[in-house]
């Protein structure tokens, strides 16, 4: 097959993101200018997301066997690019005072975004691995970025090495699982792997199950699902905040989209043992994430553990997809991922605004009395936390409604009970943060001012808060978009 230029047209968002990185790199080569590099990256990501959004209604094609560009992948391309852009905006004031070269950070951010776009468009193991490694490699760099800075807060090197070693091990398991599947089926395309489940293949059913479970474990590590979550709190805590945000949002959503496509296309859930494994991982993640979060005093660690729980919630909808007719479970996963990204960007955004590369304020006590010192930041943070807890008027509630709905349709009573227990426990640590902000301010305030005066960051907060509330009260526009695009998955 000869690929013409026209065939590559659907890849335009990916190409724009790539071009952005190259332009930014060239610009650094010519003259180091922090604002310019950031500006190029932000503008490029904005253009990429706009182009992807404009293509959504018309494009649906397989570009080479590796990448599928349909409405679903374009939706997540938009989401990824916009999120990356928002994180780039937050990064600007955060890194502004770093006593080291700052410009390359945006290259890493851009390259990671390329990897994420490849992942959300992947329906082939080769592109999955390509995208995943592109994303991960850049993230190692982003996590360790302030390592040469003498003033760096936290422990970026420790976090990066920890992430690198464990992530590489997980990639190994993932690759091994893929190899077993290849040995079984002779193909790496998701759509052809169906044979693993449909027919009795040469090497036996047990072989297929082991292969699929190894793939799942590899993915579960990246999603920080328990019991493969050990790295998460340490890496979240040790990384500079923008990198943590990137890891928590795009790093998770891109991987989950791959998992969703894989599970739904290959019908892997028709094995009872796979359902059992995924359900157990969901239960352990929800309980471990929520219970361990109770013990933390660092906001980054709390959010790390809460992300473990949230990924567990998402698995419930994934399991439900096997039992439920129609697209409701896919919609639930999609909506929840969207909601999760909005609220995570917001929550980490507030912490980023008051922090910088020299000093991060991530202890609960630093936020005592924030409601009276800086009502704006406190209101945004409260909104994000209540949304994470799934309280109405916020997008997180609609997301949780989706999860409950698909769980009820599938009749997953045990998982729903765990979801309720987990959410109940979760309320405690979210409210603990809210309560701390409601207290009277301490005399020795953690941070004096309302954080960075850089308007861009506050603009981002206003944007995510608006999304959070508007979609929480009137979700219909997003609901109908997701309803349409979810048809692509089945």
């Amino acid at each position, binding site marked *: 097959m000869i690929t013409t230029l026209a065939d590559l047209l659907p890849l335009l968002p990916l190409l724009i993101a790539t071009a952005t990185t190259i332009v930014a790199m060239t610009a650094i080569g010519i003259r180091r200018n922090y604002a310019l590099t950031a500006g190029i990256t932000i503008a490029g990501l904005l253009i990429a997301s706009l182009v992807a959004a404009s293509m959504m209604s018309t494009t649906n094609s397989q570009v080479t066997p590796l990448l599928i560009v349909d409405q679903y992948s374009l939706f997540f391309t938009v989401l990824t690019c916009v999120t990356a852009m928002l994180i780039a905006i937050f990064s600007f004031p955060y890194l502004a005072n770093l006593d080291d070269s700052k410009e390359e950070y945006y290259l890493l951010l851009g390259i990671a975004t390329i990897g994420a776009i490849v992942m959300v468009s992947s329906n082939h193991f080769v592109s999955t691995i390509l995208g995943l490694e592109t994303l991960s490699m850049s993230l190692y760099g982003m996590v360790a970025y302030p390592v040469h800075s003498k003033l760096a807060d936290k422990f970026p090197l420790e976090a990066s090495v920890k992430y690198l070693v464990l992530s590489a091990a997980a990639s190994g398991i993932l690759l091994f699982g893929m190899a077993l599947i290849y040995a079984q089926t002779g193909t790496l395309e998701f759509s052809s792997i169906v044979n693993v489940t449909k027919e009795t293949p040469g090497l036996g059913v047990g072989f297929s199950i082991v292969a699929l479970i190894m793939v799942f474990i590899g993915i579960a590590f990246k999603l920080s699902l328990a019991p493969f979550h050990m790295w998460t709190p340490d890496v979240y805590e040790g990384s500079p905040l923008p990198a943590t945000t990137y890891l928590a949002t795009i790093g998770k959503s891109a991987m989950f989209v791959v998992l969703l496509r894989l599970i739904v296309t290959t019908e892997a859930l028709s094995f009872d043992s796979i359902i059992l494994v995924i359900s157990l991982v969901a239960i352990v993640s929800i309980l471990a994430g929520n219970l361990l979060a109770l013990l933390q005093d660092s906001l980054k660690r709390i959010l790390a553990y809460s992300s473990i729980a949230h990924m567990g919630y998402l698995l419930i909808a994934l399991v439900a997809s096997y039992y439920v007719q129609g697209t409701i479970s896919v919609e639930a996963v999609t909506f929840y991922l969207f909601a999760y990204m909005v609220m995570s960007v917001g929550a980490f955004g507030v912490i980023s605004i008051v922090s910088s590369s020299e000093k991060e304020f991530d202890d609960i006590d630093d936020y005592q009395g924030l409601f009276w010192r800086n009502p704006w930041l406190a209101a945004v943070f409260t909104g994000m936390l209540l949304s994470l807890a799934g309280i109405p008027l916020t997008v997180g509630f609609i997301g949780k409604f989706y999860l*409950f709905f698909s769980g*009820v349709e599938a009749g997953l009573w045990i998982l729903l009970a765990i979801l*309720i227990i987990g*959410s*109940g426990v979760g*309320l*405690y640590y979210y*409210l603990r943060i809210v*309560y701390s902000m*409601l207290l009277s301010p301490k005399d020795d305030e953690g941070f004096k001012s309302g954080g960075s005066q850089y308007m861009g960051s506050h603009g981002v907060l206003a944007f995510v808060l608006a999304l959070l509330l508007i979609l929480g009260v009137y979700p219909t526009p997003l609901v109908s978009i997701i309803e349409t695009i979810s048809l692509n998955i089945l």
Partner: protein
Amino acid sequence: MILVWLISILFVGGIIAWLSERINPSYPRVIALITVVLDLLLMLSVLGAEPNSGGWIASVNAEWVPRFGISFYLAADGLSVLLISLTGFLGIIAIGSAWDEVKERVGFFYFNLLWTLAGVLGVFTALDLFLFFFFWEVMLIPMYFIIAIWGHENKNYAAMKFFIFTQVTGMLMLVSILMLAYFHLVQNGILSFNYHDLLSVEMGDRIEMWVMLGFFVAFTTKLPSVPFHSWLPDAHSQAPTAGSVILAGILLKTGAYGLIRFAVPLFPEASLSFSPIAMALAAISILYCAKVAFAQTDIKRLIAYTSVSHMGFVTLGIYAWNEQALQGAVMTMLAHGLSAAALFMLAGGLQHRIHTREMPDMGGFWVKVPRMAVVALFFSVAALGMPGLGNFVGEFLALLGAFQANISITVISAFGLILASVYSLWVIQMIFHGEYTDKKVDDSHLTDLNGREMLYFGAMMLGLVWMGMYPQSFLNLSQPVLVELLNSTQSIVAAVVQN
């Protein structure tokens, strides 16, 4: 549309009150008062509106999330109107009780107060179950803030407990609502959260029981009833006075309203077979909490336990499910709304003046504050069920109706009236009678009720006397609604019995 106005006026008024603090810290309370008075006037116009063929007044129905068949469906009938009016009335009272007491962050306080009221109005008028759940949760958050910010010494614990109890049981209800909607989808092919659609859903016995329990637990937690009541004493003793007024007067009634409107009509068969257990729980609530109330030394905790005890009569009446018992339940809700609110205000007023809630430290206050003593005596006597006042009508009717349904439980419950007399009079004796000693507490600020306080206590007294002397004016409003509910459930239950 008028219902939308009722709710949105409160939402908007809350925001304006919050913002107005920047101009002058005394503006928020005035704005809040104007908002609620405006709302109350609008409510009176609802009272006069002509109901449509189904008996619903002022309904509004618009698509909200078509994907799930969720609509923005508000409507009121006689029952809702009674409770809406109670909400408006107690809203004004609550603002009055906060007038001097709340001095910090006033703007945000009145914002939360008005948003709680808005959420409650939504609960009383929503006829889409998703919308109902939405408002059910919306009223929690501002209430959490009221307790957590303006509460007393142990506010974090109380606010957290209140929130987690109600939120977790709320999620059980959400699962039940979704199951109802799912069964409707399976049976009729369309997804709907409309109350009228869901009334016709049929489920197997066992499933219906589970689904019903989801509602029951959520509502009896809010009511509250044993064994889900333990959040209430903490929340009440820590909440500021206005918070207690709203909590005891209105929020608890949303649980009872939910039982009458949703839990029983949606699941008539399961409710019928569950009614002995529910009535037994009611009897336990009445007696156990009356006994526990007697053991309290903290006056607010005491009143909180008596609230649980009195709300037991409401549960009893609802699960007896005949006209007299239901009328009794509704009357008790209204009368207890006033009497409990008044008692909490008196307790709050005392705490504001002498900075303690411990009754053993008080005594002999009649000499110093005769007006307060008389008012307290009036509301205590009302609460214990003195004929001629509203509470008597309610509890008497509830017992009368329950007697037809279950004699033994009713007889046991009736002992609650005796215990009520004991603890009510005991409170009066502890605080106002006896030797006046000024050693235990700093009584330099112990002043008698002022004109404003007398005004709103007077209004509440008037309300209770009206309820007691001419209950028909209230019963007439709720009667058609309750008869309609009874008929609809009885035909279903009768069909089951025949089969």
